[in-house]
């Protein structure tokens, strides 16, 4: 799909994410809005997946390692027909699978790993990528992590093993929105220089604007063409992207919009093209 088409999808998903956050009082809005463009690029343009065969052994795997962005993933999977959009009416309802984090894969088609505790998804994706080599398959594995998640030691344990094993079918995407739960990510832990860190760990590094669709597609294609080492796409993003009064304001990590805020936000997210 061309960039205009993808942008239209992103706008639609942003609106739904906001509506859901308001209706079901689901937090982590800022984190969802920073990565939704990355999800759209991957799910519409990059991943080799077939929603009618969610368990196909050859499918590409996408693991949302930053599991608190599940409200974005749930919308993406519905839009890609892994389940009917109507099911999302149960978002936040007692007894439904649609709450704050992705459930175990057996409970929702399209989900590859139940995440929410940070630092688990990327190592699991590494296991999935190694399995491709062991079973003679050619699928690729993607894990979306947050910059806050880079605090976790397991990210760097996995980074060392992936490089030692030359796992070139693994691509990690860092949603580098500059914030973690309670502060600037570069102030809480010394994350900078993130590019150099990954490079020093033996990874092929690509830096992009995580809201620029043609840059994202180019980065993922470059990673797919890389042999002999794992790849990381460091995507510079804006937390709360798309809603002026949420952008780069970390209060929206936990806050949910009230009725007035929702109305204002939805007005900003109209498709004017």
């Amino acid at each position, binding site marked *: 799909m061309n960039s205009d088409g993808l942008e239209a999808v992103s706008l639609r998903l942003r609106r739904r994410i906001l509506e859901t956050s308001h209706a079901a009082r689901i937090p982590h809005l800022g984190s969802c809005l920073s990565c939704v463009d990355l999800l759209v690029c991957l799910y519409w343009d990059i991943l080799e997946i077939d929603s009618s065969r969610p368990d196909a*052994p050859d499918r590409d795997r996408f693991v949302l390692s930053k599991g608190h962005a599940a409200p974005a993933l749930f919308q993406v999977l519905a839009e890609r027909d892994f389940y009917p959009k109507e099911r999302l009416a149960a978002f936040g309802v007692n007894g439904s699978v649609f709450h704050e984090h992705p459930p*175990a*894969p*057996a409970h929702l088609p399209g989900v*590859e*790993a*139940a995440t929410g*505790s940070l*630092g*688990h998804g990327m*190592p*699991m*994706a*590494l*296991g*999935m*990528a*190694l*399995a*491709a*080599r*062991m*079973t003679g398959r050619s699928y690729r594995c993607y894990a979306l992590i947050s910059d806050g998640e880079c605090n976790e*030691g*397991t990210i760097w*344990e*996995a980074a*060392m*093993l992936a490089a*030692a*094993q030359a796992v070139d079918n693994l691509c990690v995407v860092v949603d580098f929105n500059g914030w973690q739960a309670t502060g600037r990510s570069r102030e809480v832990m010394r994350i900078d220089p993130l590019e150099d860190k990954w490079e020093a760990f033996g990874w092929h590094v690509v830096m992009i604007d995580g809201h620029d669709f043609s840059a994202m597609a180019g980065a993922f294609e470059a990673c797919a063409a890389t042999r002999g080492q794992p790849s990381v796409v460091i995507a510079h993003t804006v937390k709360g992207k798309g809603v002026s009064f949420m952008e780069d304001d970390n209060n929206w990590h936990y806050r949910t919009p009230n009725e007035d805020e929702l109305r204002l936000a939805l007005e900003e997210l109209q498709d004017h093209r």
Partner: protein
Amino acid sequence: MRNAFAREITRLAVERQDVVLLTGDIGNRLFDEFKGLAPGRFLNCGVAEANMMSVAAGLALSGLRPVVYTITPFTTVRVLEQLRVGVCYHEAPVVVVGTGSGLSYAELGPTHHSLEDIAITRCLPGLNVLAPADSQELVAFLREALENPNPTYMRIGKKGEPALHPEGASLSIGSARTLRDGEDLVILCIGPIAAEALRAAETIAADGPRVEVVSMGSVKPLDVDFLDGLARRCGRWITLEEHGMIGGLGSTVLEWLAGTRHAVRLTRMGVPDAFIHEIGDQAFVRSTLGLDAASIHAAIKEALV
């Protein structure tokens, strides 16, 4: 036992193309044959056990049958969350093996003792928790665990553990197995420490009492049918384990008894709730903690008063 594990996992890797062995940079030379026969399915994950456990979960979710092997504290307490979330929550059929469990590495000090592993693993939903008494039990459990759809934790010893089962015994997960018959008292054991119980049963027989010795093999599943039958014929039990007193075999049996109407007098033998500061070899530490044959002998006498 670790040699028996290495031999059997190598055999299994030849028989089955889905078996993968992950180690945390231990077992120097131990897996040379495995590496020679299935080099693509041996992964030294380095001294990074948390990552290793999640990688194993990812492999299992992709159709493989990973077996994770390192020293017990590093496959259990160190990686508890990876075991809980990656393996158990995902129902990923990973087999986790803890070597040198209990006091097998007594000389290495409390960092290498594992006296809490049964307690913390048996509360994880869906996880089988096994502790074979000897190499024959280990081999049978390992084979069966790789057929099971659910994950398994198995704690094993180090080396030189005596064979306790008669050759060719039919052994399976969740089935208790009597090692010695007796009517006056029964010792329910888990793990290689059953050898101490057998010695005690033998020496006390000279004084008259006939003591049955049982290898439980697993706390989860617990062989409740066996225990139910046992309670109908013998009401004096001892549980014996190289594990803390909290949460192990003794606790498991008590929990089960609490839901029955059986009148059983139970003595629990295990490691007191304290770190061990008087370090020595396994036999020394067992004797100072009251877990050697002589202490069991005394406990039997007391229980039969």
